[in-house]
């Protein structure tokens, strides 16, 4: 039966969620309602007495100052429509879980709680409107169910979405002695995402063993061999053709990515652990190392933006936690790519409107980051309508760890036969089954709902605290995250060290019964880490876990058998040779063919009013202020922030990079920056990648980051680059990938910047019916580096009347793919090209000038060119400027508009105090720099060129234009 407690606000003024919902109904659906009020319902699967329910209502679920509660009569009254939203069975209900704990604290009784929420709507709307509100705004049908009642109907019956699985656990054998066609059927039906060659390799292997694989074996092979886990495209043998010349590349990863680090690694001494662990590790100071990892969580975010993004952020936290013997997360970064929020064409089937995706993702990151106590210090939001097909959600986490604990190098994991396999954190359910294989496919009609998970930040926070405590007690020998592929991946990876593992699947704690053994082993249920500990520490470890409210279970042991074995109540479920599991996947052979695309070359007159053009560019979604979003992230918890996302006179200028102090009491700082420019991909991914690298380094240098400790992470998000019926232009897309990799090697080696970690997501396409949407190839370069003394950091805002304004770098006629051309409806061809040698020289000089405290402000010049960088510097400082571009260093840029809006890379806008002019110019000697004017005390922003005023406007106008677009 179950019991129910309802809670509502005494006064509608307190019901902020209700009033916010009313506004959203108008904003998202254009439906007017008079009023929305909310009722929270706690549905309890237990036979508690009325007295107990009242006690709970009074002391646990309501706040006596603002709430009413009821355990008998429904609280809903005075409405036209009532919409109740509940979770579908098996979906993570975080508040429900906390409620159970709160009941236990008070009544010392165990009971399961399911939460649901009522929205009481008053207004002249139809039932159809109510349905639209229910599914188009309040609930995501994939994970939530809605009930709509018309007045005066109400309900007070407990809603108990219990998973009722009666299935008996069985181990099935899959017959692989079948035709090729049937092999592919098996792959497709099981969402295995294995191609024919791979299926045949498996068929062959089991033929040799004289048996067929079990369901679990096939599933584990599919997870381990998935594009998501195995990066098959990056390890393929590729024949690349450009202008008739052919080149054979054996593994893009080895040649270009690892190759970069091998080359740079000979020159730098700060690399500690690269590519082999969950995150890259570099030296920070004498006693500590820094850890950094960036992930993507695109496919889940397309289906459930809130859950997808939340899972993304807490997931990458676990990568940091699972590096070495664990590091403490100290910052998050997030970069999103969406279609424009004002997208007004019909949205294809199964996709959500970009604004809803945006808001869901934002909220997911807010909850994931804020509730975990990890500051979100850096990020950006990029718009292109092709991200309608799949939004990109990049989430990164940095950590810090002592170099040595108990005399041992903390970056090393050690597992010996006989050590215990511990699973800790959340329980296993059907959620997240096939996540790894699902993200290795395009989004299609049958994309499984179970691939979506909802993160539980509080369970994870408890686990995080516990793990760090266990680490500091010296108990953790090895640790890794349960992400893609679940236990099959985590235990599989860890047991390579000892040479094998045995799992006892019946010991794995489950959310509900009815899971098959194969499901237990591959489920991607969240908030779990796998830990290896020595037997003698087991009791102490378990005791601490219990006292910290963290579930930990010994689920197996490490062996040296050479095999990864799993059993369920004594019955063998899986026995895989590690050699086959990890090295058995066939290497793909792919062709790539590059042909430079030609776009229409723009021919329009120089607009008469360039002030207006500047104001319009500032308002473009890629350029404008993201304050509305970023303010909702805690960017300074842990108290370490030095350069925040917002700087300047009114704390709203756009910071180029973040600086934090990882060690309390020390002035050595960690600098976090990034670069991303998918707009240039249309012309050439080589230059797109070069620009992303250059932008990241520029941002790092602009805040004062040193160049001697600087490392990068590469995150590729591509559209499917394998030629097939679905992807006839696969060879071109693969060539785009090859070219991006070449740029990665060329520029990172030129900047002495090793790659320490990265990830690729290769199937960012949408395909249903005849509609195919592929994202523009996108690479995110995230950097982590050092500033020796945070007190020397510089921000981008103009500081003082009378300061001199400089442009560093040469301006070229490079507007291909620029914001300005896009504003005029063109792509063009003259994509910005980075000259690494001169850029690096300039960066070293600017870094010297900053170290010598000669610079008042420095701002990266990127989207929208000089016009935007100068305007941002001025209005962020609240100080006008008088500028003259006549003498600005350039290569034959004769048009005023091109001079203002060219996106030539490797440039900065810098302001300098007049009494430091000489020292500054001496330090910059040998580099292109131009003194173009000064900071004034007025409100005017004026730019001249060749004797005439080309821009004249006010700070207020510039700032308003820049702030308005995404301020909802």
């Amino acid at each position, binding site marked *: 039966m179950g019991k129910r407690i309802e809670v509502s606000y005494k006064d509608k003024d*307190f019901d902020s969620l209700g009033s916010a919902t009313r506004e959203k109904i108008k904003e998202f659906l254009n439906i007017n309602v008079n009023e929305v009020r909310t009722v929270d319902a706690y549905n309890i699967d237990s036979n508690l007495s009325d007295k107990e329910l009242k006690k709970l209502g009074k002391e646990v679920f309501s706040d006596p100052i603002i709430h009413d509660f009821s355990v008998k009569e429904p609280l809903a009254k005075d409405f036209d429509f009532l919409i109740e939203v509940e979770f579908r069975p098996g979906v993570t209900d975080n508040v429900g879980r*906390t*409620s159970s704990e709160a009941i236990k604290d008070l009544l010392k009784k165990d009971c399961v709680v399911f939460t649901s929420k009522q929205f009481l709507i008053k207004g002249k709307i139809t039932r159809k409107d109510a349905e639209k509100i229910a599914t188009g705004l309040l609930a995501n049908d994939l994970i939530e169910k809605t009930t709509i009642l018309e007045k005066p109907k109400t309900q007070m019956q407990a809603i108990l979405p219990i998973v009722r699985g009666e299935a008996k656990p069985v181990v099935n054998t899959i017959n692989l002695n079948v035709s090729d066609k049937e092999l592919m059927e098996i792959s497709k039906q099981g969402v295995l995402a294995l191609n024919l060659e791979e299926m045949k390799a498996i068929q062959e292997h089991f033929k040799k063993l004289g048996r067929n694989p079990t369901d679990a074996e096939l599933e584990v092979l599919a997870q381990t061999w998935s594009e998501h886990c195995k990066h098959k495209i990056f390890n393929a043998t590729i024949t690349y053709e450009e202008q008739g010349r052919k080149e054979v590349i054996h593994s893009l990863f080895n040649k270009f990515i690892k190759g970069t680090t091998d080359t740079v690694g000979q020159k730098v001494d700060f690399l500690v652990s690269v590519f082999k662990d969950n995150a890259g590790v570099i030296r920070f100071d004498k006693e500590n190392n820094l850890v950094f990892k960036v992930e993507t969580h695109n496919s889940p975010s397309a289906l459930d933006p809130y859950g997808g993004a939340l899972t993304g952020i807490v997931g990458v936290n676990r990568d940091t936690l699972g590096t070495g013997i664990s590091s403490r997360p100290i910052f998050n970064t997030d970069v999103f790519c969406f279609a424009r929020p004002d997208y007004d064409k019909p949205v294809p089937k199964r996709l959500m409107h970009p604004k809803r995706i945006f808001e869901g993702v934002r909220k997911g990151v807010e909850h994931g980051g804020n509730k975990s106590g990890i500051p979100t210090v850096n990020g950006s939001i990029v718009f292109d309508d092709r991200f309608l097909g799949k939004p990109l959600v990049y989430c990164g986490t940095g950590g810090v760890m002592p170099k040595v604990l108990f005399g041992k190098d903390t970056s090393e994991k050690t597992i010996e036969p006989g050590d215990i396999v511990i699973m800790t954190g959340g329980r296993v359910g059907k959620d997240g089954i096939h996540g790894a294989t699902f993200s290795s496919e395009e989004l299609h009609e049958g994309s499984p709902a179970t691939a979506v998970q909802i993160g539980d930040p509080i369970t994870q926070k408890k686990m995080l605290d516990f793990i760090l405590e266990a680490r500091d007690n010296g108990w953790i020998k090895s640790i890794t995250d349960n992400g893609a592929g679940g236990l099959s991946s985590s235990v599989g990876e860890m047991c390579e060290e000892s040479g094998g593992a045995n799992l006892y699947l019946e010991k794995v704690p489950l959310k509900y019964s009815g899971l098959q053994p194969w499901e237990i082993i591959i489920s991607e249920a969240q908030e779990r880490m796998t830990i290896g500990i020595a037997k003698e520490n087991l009791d102490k470890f378990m005791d601490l876990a219990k006292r910290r409210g963290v579930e930990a279970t010994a689920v197996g042991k490490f062996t040296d058998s050479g095999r990864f074995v799993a059993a369920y109540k004594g019955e063998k479920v899986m026995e895989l040779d590690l050699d086959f599991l990890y090295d058995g996947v066939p290497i793909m052979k792919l062709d790539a063919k590059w042909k430079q695309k030609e776009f229409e070359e723009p021919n329009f007159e120089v607009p008469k009013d360039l002030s207006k053009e500047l104001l319009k560019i500032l308002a473009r979604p890629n350029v404008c202020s993201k304050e509305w979003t970023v303010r909702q992230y805690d960017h300074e*918890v842990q108290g370490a922030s030095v350069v925040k996302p917002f700087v300047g006179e009114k704390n709203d200028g756009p910071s180029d990079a973040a600086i934090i102090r990882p060690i309390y009491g020390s002035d050595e700082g960690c600098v976090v920056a990034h670069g991303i420019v998918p707009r240039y991909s249309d012309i050439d991914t080589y230059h797109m990648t070069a620009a992303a690298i250059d932008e990241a380094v520029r941002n790092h240098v602009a805040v004062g980051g040193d160049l001697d400790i600087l490392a990068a992470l590469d995150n590729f998000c591509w559209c499917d680059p394998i030629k097939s019926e679905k992807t006839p232009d696969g060879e071109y897309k693969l060539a785009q990938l090859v070219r991006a990799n070449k740029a990665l090697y060329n520029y990172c080696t030129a900047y002495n910047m090793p790659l320490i970690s990265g990830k690729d997501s290769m199937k960012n396409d949408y395909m249903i019916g005849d509609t195919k949407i592929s994202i523009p190839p996108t690479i995110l370069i995230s950097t982590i580096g050092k500033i020796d003394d945070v007190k020397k950091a510089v921000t981008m805002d103009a500081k003082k009347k009378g300061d001199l304004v400089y442009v560093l770098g040469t301006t070229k006629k490079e507007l291909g793919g620029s914001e300005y051309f896009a504003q005029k409806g063109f792509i063009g061809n003259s994509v910005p090209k980075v000259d690494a040698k001169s850029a690096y020289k300039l960066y070293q000089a600017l870094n010297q000038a900053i170290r010598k405290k000669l610079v008042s402000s420095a701002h990266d010049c990127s989207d929208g060119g000089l016009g935007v960088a100068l305007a941002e510097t001025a209005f962020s400082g609240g100080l006008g400027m008088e500028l003259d571009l006549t003498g600005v260093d350039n290569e034959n840029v004769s048009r005023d508009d091109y001079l203002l809006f060219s996106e030539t890379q490797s440039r900065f806008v810098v302001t300098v105090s007049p009494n430091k002019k000489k020292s500054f110019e001496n330090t910059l000697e040998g580099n292109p720099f131009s003194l173009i004017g000064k900071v004034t005390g007025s409100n005017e922003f004026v730019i001249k060129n060749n004797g005439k005023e080309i821009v004249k406007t006010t700070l207020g106008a510039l700032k308003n234009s820049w702030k308005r677009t995404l301020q909802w």
Partner: protein
Amino acid sequence: MEEDIAMVKVCVLTGFGINCDYETEHAFKLAGAKAQKVHLQDVIDGIKNLSDYQILAFPGGFSFGDDIASGKVMANKFKTALWDDMKQFVEDGKLVIGICNGFQIMVKMGLLPDIEEGQTTTLSINDSGKFEDRWVYLKKDAKTKCVWTQAVDKIYLPIRHGEGKFIVKDKNVLGRLELNKQIVFRYTDEKYEPTSEYPQNPNGSIDNIAGICDKTGRVFGLMPHPEAFVTPQNHPRWTRENIEKGDGLKIFINAVNYAKKNLK
């Protein structure tokens, strides 16, 4: 070791989603105390005793993820297990601070504004409906008895919350707060004039209240984060204004000095 014994001992609670424990501990250390992060469960289990400390801090964070309501579940957990110890701690003349989620916890277990009266105030969802991280100007009520804010008049600190709207049960409660000099900080504009305008008053708190203390002035709760401004470089405009010190630190120094003088 002798020096150790003479030092003021601070219990900085942690666990269950508290997440400003590191910087709160650091702030007390900078203020000259011997501060220690202590897991709440260890206090409940009797492994650690409140009576061993002179100052107790409920740091900010998201205890139990703000599920049900911010601070609510933690308040119940603490109260169910440790209410007598808590009362004794206050009776002994010791000091308590709750910051952000810590303030929410204190208010919801009735430790503030008056330990004898049960819950009479609350902190609810911001009028904006949003969590926000922004710096706010605060002015001290000149009459306040609060021992934590001696010689602090105006202060600039970050708020980082979604549920900070201070609400009282009725007018009498507000009257008593005023009468007993329990109002410590109000949100103000840039000129330090109290205001109810958003975003200077970021949440819609009644009478622009940002922090209160109990009748003794020793038990103090506030929504803004003093521990987030303990060095000049924490200030959002330190690169353009002449910031000499982290103003938030003074609050911790006051408490440590008070404890040194008055508590053994």
